[in-house]
């Protein structure tokens, strides 16, 4: 038990040391790329928290990622030089001119019908804060309704799936407010004092690496608390927990909101790294892809799910850029997924766990056999 904990702590430390040391080895092109993968790693953490620990398979995590991304992108759009050119007191996104009401006042308040919603986003801190607050509040409100109604299992998956598609449609259909299908592009950079978080800068990479480390350690500590233990109990048997006196929906809602907050932070970081926000963030395929990352990495392990996301994205990039595999890389990745699901139901983390078990057992000098039944212990 203790040797396992030691190994786990070492794995976390090693991973965090690796991502923090990367800038001393890699050039800016690769840093920007790895930063994107680390953002996806955060999504892996968010999925693991809700799926692995709370038992809520969210097929619409892209909703929280997308909202986080858009909140941040709105501020960065206003900070962009393309928005400063107008002869008005307030910056106005270029697409609003193209969508302006005939004869409308050329100010942010009234150039299009709903453009006033952009006014507070002139402060980049407002955009940053909303990127975390909005997904968290939406998740809390949703959770309060859905979990109170004791909706569970596949029904939550369906609700989330429908919801992410609904919001995607709303964004696409509100061209004057969101630039619709084109998304928000030509963004400025987040600036604190003299420090510009340019997408190719080390500062941006470090921001992502630190955010990932913090959310990874934070989530791991959170599930280690008594509340985290109760959450796992709720996942296994909500009814039993209820009859022990736990108000089940509050636990589910709390952790669902934390998961949404992490996804929101991932969204805002992605915008800083990739310099755009797009309705494709709320494509169904993207939300499902996140679940696949977590499944491959191991949905019961936060670090596993995070590494799963990073590895798959690296593999995809590596293969899609290899001449010989240009045609077949998608098929190869598909086969890898199927193989993992068939042969490693607990993902890469489960594999690591089994290896560790085998090692410690061989080393154990005790003549008394460890009972076979304990070999299924999760990480």
């Amino acid at each position, binding site marked *: *038990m203790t040797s396992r904990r030691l190994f786990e702590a070492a794995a976390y430390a090693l991973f965090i040391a690796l991502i923090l040391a990367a800038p001393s080895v890699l050039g800016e092109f690769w840093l920007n790329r790895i930063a994107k993968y680390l953002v996806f790693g955060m999504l892996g953490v968010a999925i693991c928290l809700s799926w692995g620990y709370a038992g809520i398979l969210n097929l619409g995590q892209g909703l929280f990622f997308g909202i986080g991304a858009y909140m941040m992108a709105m501020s960065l759009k206003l900070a962009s030089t393309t928005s400063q050119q107008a002869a008005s007191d307030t910056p106005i996104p270029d697409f609003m001119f193209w969508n302006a009401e005939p004869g409308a006042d050329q100010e942010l308040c009234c150039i299009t019908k709903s453009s006033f919603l952009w006014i507070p986003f002139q402060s980049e801190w407002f955009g940053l804060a909303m990127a975390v607050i909005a997904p968290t509040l939406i998740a809390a409100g949703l959770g309060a309704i859905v979990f109170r109604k004791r909706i569970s299992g596949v029904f939550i998956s369906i609700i989330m799936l429908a919801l992410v598609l609904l919001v995607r449609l709303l964004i696409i259909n509100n061209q004057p407010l969101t630039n619709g299908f084109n998304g928000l592009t030509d963004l400025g950079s987040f600036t604190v004092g003299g420090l510009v978080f340019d997408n190719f800068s080390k500062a941006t990479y470090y921001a992502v690496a630190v955010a990932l480390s913090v959310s990874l350690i934070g989530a791991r*500590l*959170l599930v*280690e*608390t*008594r*509340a985290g*233990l*109760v959450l*796992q*109990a709720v*996942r*296994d*048997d909500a*009814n*039993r*927990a*209820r*009859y*022990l*006196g*736990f*108000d*089940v929906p*509050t*636990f589910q809602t*709390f952790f669902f909101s934390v998961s949404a907050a992490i996804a929101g932070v991932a969204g805002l970081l992605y915008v800083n790294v990739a310099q755009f926000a797009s309705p494709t963030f709320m494509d169904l395929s993207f939300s499902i892809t996140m679940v696949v990352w977590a499944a491959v990495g191991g949905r019961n392990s936060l670090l596993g799910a995070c590494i799963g996301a990073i590895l798959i994205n690296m593999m995809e990039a590596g293969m899609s850029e290899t001449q010989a595999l240009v045609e077949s890389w998608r098929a190869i990745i598909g086969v890898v997924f199927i193989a993992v699901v068939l042969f490693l139901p607990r993902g890469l983390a489960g594999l690591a766990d089994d290896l560790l078990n085998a090692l410690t057992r061989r080393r154990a000098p005790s003549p008394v056999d460890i*009972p076979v*039944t*304990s070999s*299924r*212990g*999760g990480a």
Partner: protein
Amino acid sequence: MAAAALTLDGLGVEFSGFKAVSKVSTVIEEGELRVLLGANGAGKTTLMDLISGRTRSTEGRVFLFDREITNREEFVIARAGLGRKFQIPSVFKDLSVRRNLLVAACPSRGVFSNLRFGFPSATRDRVEDVLELTGLTEAADDIAANLSHGQTQWLELGLLIVQQPKVLLLDEPTAGMTAAETQKTARIIKALRGRHTLVVVEHDMAFVRAIAERITVLHLGQIIAEGDIAHVESHPKVKEAYLGSGGIH
């Protein structure tokens, strides 16, 4: 006379015209061990559902000591001091036996009050005591899903004991058990007598004889007899209800 721990006052429920339980009134005293007896469909489990908040009653009231708990939410009733064991044992199957008990031992029940690490040493000691009492010390680090049926039943009993409810409802605690397991369960339940007020639903007459003080017999949703074993066995209404099967075995 001891205080009334659980008072049912004309409790009943109607499912679209069908009265599953009707006008059940009884007083269970503090420290008493009451057995609920009745054939299949007599309304025993429904009665437990009504008391514990799983099913909303359509008539009558329930009191836990002085507090009315009629139709409150399950977790509110549980916090008021009512524990329930289900007919089909339900435990947290992916957690180890000890962690199962620690969940029940949480010093508080809210999310934010539990955002801290570890358990007070008194709580840990209590969990070890209950592991001892239920004979699960050896299996403490096993995952609950890997326990035998009997062990799972004892673990669920253990959850309730750790929870320290004032009144315990046990729905067929020996269902599916071997004779030896049944005896052990009887020992555990006897050990609880005096510390908790117990209401046990049971079919197994050998087990009932081993533990019972007072018996309440339900038939078609109503109480037809109440008293000690001798009284109940000789009661004409009970004989009438069980005539087809030749009395209670």
